[in-house]
């Protein structure tokens, strides 16, 4: 979901814009050393691909609606973290310029959420898992876990940006709900990413981005730090409702200070009017359970998908299509 204009407060627009610009500049600088015209052509075509892939609809089972792939982790796995983020950025820019889908001033926030946090952050989660497990199954499991986290982290960033804009004085509760909903949505992203990558790995495993020259040793530590931060953020989001099972205190203060007036509160104060669904007395265990179920099922689905590869191809050695040392187009037998 792209944030439209007029929703974020001005400080948030400025902050997210500055962060996005900074991230964009860092990405461009990282790319400059390895950017050849071939990468650029591929980036253009891949942007068009991500755009087109988002047009494929997947039916949801619980509600009569459909969702689509975001593709942040998919792009990062294929092109590397920074080129992937740039691809997502171009998609967002075209969507906001041609279709007004997502605000033009909120572009910074959207790029921050989907390009940097979901794409680069997702890659930071994917890479250690891939290295640890090794082989094609490592790529698959890492990408699926990262895809699940990418949706979660992007939704958290979205919620925090709206919360910082002055809405939702009961931010922890909204965060809990958003986490719960997006833990389920993320499953879809993880499954599609895994299914797509399984086909890619079986046909052209050389397309997977595998280049350590982009990261220096200090960069590797940053990556580990980002990965750890991302994971702990997600855990914190699950645990936030547990930490304050009843946020009467916040609501009381809010009521006293006039944040929440009674009339408004009775219409809608968040995804749920009270913190319980019928029959489910407390949201906190539900959130934690969904989080656990989500993580475990992503791992299991990844393992199931990866089993096909544990037999035949043990490693990813092969012609590396994105290696900077190669000159000119590579002939490929297709």
């Amino acid at each position, binding site marked *: 979901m792209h944030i439209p204009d007029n929703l974020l407060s001005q400080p948030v627009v400025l902050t997210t814009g500055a962060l996005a610009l900074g991230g964009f500049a860092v990405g461009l600088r990282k790319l400059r050393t390895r950017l050849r015209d071939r990468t650029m052509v591929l980036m253009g075509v891949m942007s068009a691909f991500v755009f087109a892939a988002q047009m494929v609809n997947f039916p949801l089972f619980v509600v009569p609606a459909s969702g689509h792939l975001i593709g942040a982790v998919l792009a990062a796995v294929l092109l590397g973290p920074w080129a992937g983020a740039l691809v997502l950025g171009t998609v967002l820019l075209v969507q906001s310029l041609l279709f007004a889908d997502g605000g033009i001033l909120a572009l910074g926030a959207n790029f921050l959420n989907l390009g940097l946090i979901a794409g680069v952050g997702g890659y930071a989660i994917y890479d250690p898992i891939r290295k640890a497990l090794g082989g094609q199954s490592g790529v698959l499991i890492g990408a699926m876990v990262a895809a699940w986290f990418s949706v979660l982290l992007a939704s958290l960033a979205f919620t925090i940006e709206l919360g910082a804009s002055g809405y939702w004085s009961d931010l922890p509760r909204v965060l809990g709900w958003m986490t719960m909903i997006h833990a389920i949505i993320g499953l879809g992203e993880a499954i599609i990413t895994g299914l797509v990558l399984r086909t890619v790995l079986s046909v052209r495993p050389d397309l997977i981005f595998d280049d350590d020259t982009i990261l220096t040793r200090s960069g590797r530590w940053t990556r580990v730090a980002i990965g750890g931060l991302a994971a702990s953020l997600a855990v914190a989001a699950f645990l936030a409702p547990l930490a304050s099972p009843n946020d009467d205190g916040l609501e009381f203060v809010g009521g006293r200070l006039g944040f929440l007036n009674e009339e408004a509160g009775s219409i809608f*104060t968040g995804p749920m009017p009270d913190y319980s669904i019928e029959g489910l007395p407390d949201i906190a265990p539900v959130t934690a359970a969904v989080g656990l179920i989500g993580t475990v099922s992503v791992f299991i689905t990844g393992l199931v998908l990866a089993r096909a590869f544990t037999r035949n191809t043990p490693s990813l050695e092969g012609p590396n299509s994105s290696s900077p040392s190669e000159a000119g187009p590579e002939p490929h037998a297709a």
Partner: protein
Amino acid sequence: MRLDWLEPDQSAHGSLHRLDARIKLVATLALVLAVVLLPIGSWRPLGGAAMLLAFLVGISGVSPGTLLRRGLAVMPVVVLLAVMIAPSHPMAPTFGPWVVGGTILAKNCLTILSILLLAHVTPFRDLMTALEQLRAPTVLVATLLLMYRYLFVLAEQLSRMARARRARSFRRSRWSEWPLGASLIAGLLLRSFERGERVHAAMLARGWDGTFRSLDGPDSISPPVQPDSASP
């Protein structure tokens, strides 16, 4: 999304079409910024902005129905967010949630319509040249140009693949949609990658030196990178 939605209809030839793309881009951004900065409940400036926009649409010759239809396509998200946010907006206690929600919706209508108007009176290529002249990074502009060039090719390919799939699957369940959709995406991904490689080879074969040239005007986009063929 239907294919004809990918490209804004630029058949109309009003006076806005001939304006420099840089002016149009900056003016649109200024208009959006002004609307976004308006405080809650300031109906009179909003009405003024709406009249200005209506005037611009009038002299542009773009059919208002087209703009409204395209605007309506993105409105559900805006409405959903406005409904979610209006009651807990910081200004809600003073103005009431209805005024807050109404203002957010009205402002979004204005910003969405002004951006759509820009897209309808400016060819994408001109917009990119304007971005380039306004000192946007060349890599970004070049990627955008290439993306726009292949967007239609890939979208058409996707729709052909989807049609072929529909023609071959007699009974579909909701479960089978997922692997089928994923294989559709994977097929498109492989074809896109290979197309990118072929395109690059073809560009090199025609002597591409990293410069995007256009037959429309003298301005060309400078080489953002050294091409592989020239590199050691």
